């Protein structure tokens, strides 16, 4: 056989074809007794149903966590979890925190180096600059 093929696997580009929201589950933990859960409880009563209906791809769990501060915990497609404590927040602020978790990718926060926020898997159409090609520099005169 003159030619062999190397095995490879295609890599996903979320959003190029289908888009899959990376947050797959949100847990809302509240306390019925403590004052720090007041905003959270109002959120659960008034806003959660609409929030859940507008994000059907997120699985939502609500459970009590007595005598603790209220927490929203997000579970992500890549297997990680992130929690945000929402003690003493108003219900609008709780919604904002839930939206933060919804929009997270689940990856660890890391510094974007070199100002390159977006990476591409495709080759540049112009190619890489080469010193061996193109016009020769004018020779040094005198």
């Amino acid at each position, binding site marked *: *056989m*003159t*030619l*062999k*093929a*190397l*095995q*490879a*696997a*295609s*890599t*996903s*580009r*979320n959003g*190029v*074809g*289908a888009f*899959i*929201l990376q947050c*797959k*589950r949100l847990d809302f933990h509240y306390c019925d007794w403590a004052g720090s859960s007041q905003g959270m409880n109002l959120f659960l009563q008034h806003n959660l149903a609409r929030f859940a209906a507008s994000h*059907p*791809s*997120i*699985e*939502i*769990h609500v459970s009590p966590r007595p005598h603790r501060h209220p927490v929203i915990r997000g579970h992500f*497609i890549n297997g990680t979890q992130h929690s945000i404590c929402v003690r003493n927040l108003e219900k609008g602020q709780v919604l904002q925190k839930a939206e933060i978790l919804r929009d997270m990718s689940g990856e660890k926060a890391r510094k974007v180096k070199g100002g390159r926020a977006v990476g591409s*898997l*495709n080759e540049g159409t112009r190619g890489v600059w*080469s*010193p*061996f*090609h193109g016009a020769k520099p004018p020779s040094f005169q005198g």
Partner: protein
Amino acid sequence: MKALRLLRWSGSVLSPRTRPCLVHLLQQPLSNRRFLSAAASPLQQAIQYQDQEHDAEEDLWGSSQAHKGDDPVIPEDMPQSLQQEARLRALPSPPLSAAKSSAKLAALHARLSFSPRLPIETLARCLVDATADSNPDFNNTSLAILGRDLYSFYTSEAILCRYPRLPTAVVFAAMAAYIGPKTLTQITKEWGVELVAEPGGEVDPGYLQCRREDSMLIRKHSPDSDTDPTSAVEEGQPPIAGANRPNAEQKSWRRGVSSMTVYDDEFGDLVKGSARGGRSKAATTTVEDACARFVQAVMGAVYLHRGKNAAKLFFKEHILSRHLNVGKMFEFKQPTRDLSRLCAREGFESPVARILSETGRATRHPVFVVGVFAGREKLGEGAGSSLNEARIRAAVGALKGWYLYSPLEVRVPSDVEGANARPWKPVLVDIGEIIV
């Protein structure tokens, strides 16, 4: 070309099913079988399942010595909730009615942007592997067979029309890269599907139900474990690799690439099966195989419920949109020889390598840029730290330039199906890679 309506053929998926459908039960008179509707409550279903199981056992083997020593005999004085739980536990996979109330399953349905016309019960069935529930009416085997064929059809036409000159070995590798088990496992993870630790009727139907090789409970629950828990294959015969081949028993015979297209599967791998050509029936599975069957079954379900256009769109969005650099999948042994053979075959002048530019010949880090020319045409170019390296790279570049030819407008045969499609224009069919 007119689209076929498959609704009639897909009755086994779309209509309510009976349990159990052990294959030998099909020969029993109909009076023994009770039909379930999709709306039956889990309790009802569990009870019916139990009744049938017992009926069947009495008919076939007599009463109690039959089957699965742990088949629960539920005492009447047990509390209702415990009874129901025991009945659910007796089921090999979650009942149909549990699908409606599973948050995980509903989230998965929405995550894949399925329309409500694809019922959530079918999605639940896609998640039941044959190793969890051996009943073919409740597991995903039939859907996976359909989905696998659709995937290989769509992928092969996409690859062959986009790269008509691709060598067969690379076509196989590209097929595996798009729809091989490794990729499908990755897709399962990216869809947010998790696997069960151990399948059973009480498990949330949003998990992928399969019995893995490291399972501790094979002996206890496996449907095939009556006689020998470790037997992986029906009738005790080991699976034969290459069951489709005429001389399957000859392990050392060479497999040519052309014979792979005839006898082997879509990735050029040997088909594993029993001697009669059927697939082997295993008690456990690997994670990769279970995930692959799940993704294939989803494709089959989309095709049956939503039709061909939706299936094609699903394929484009989830498979074809993935990134694969086919140019990096080549491995040449003697590219300069291959290139001269190619030029001879195509009637070009024989290739000659010439230095285009160089720097630092006498230093530790020289760079040579070499081009390969056929007459006055430059076929390829490469840079290297020795003249030979640069020449070989140039030959590889020239060969890749030939093999990776891609037409500007790519149409595939399945685009022609439909009422108002443009007529088919023949695409380039290459005579194949060079033979040395």
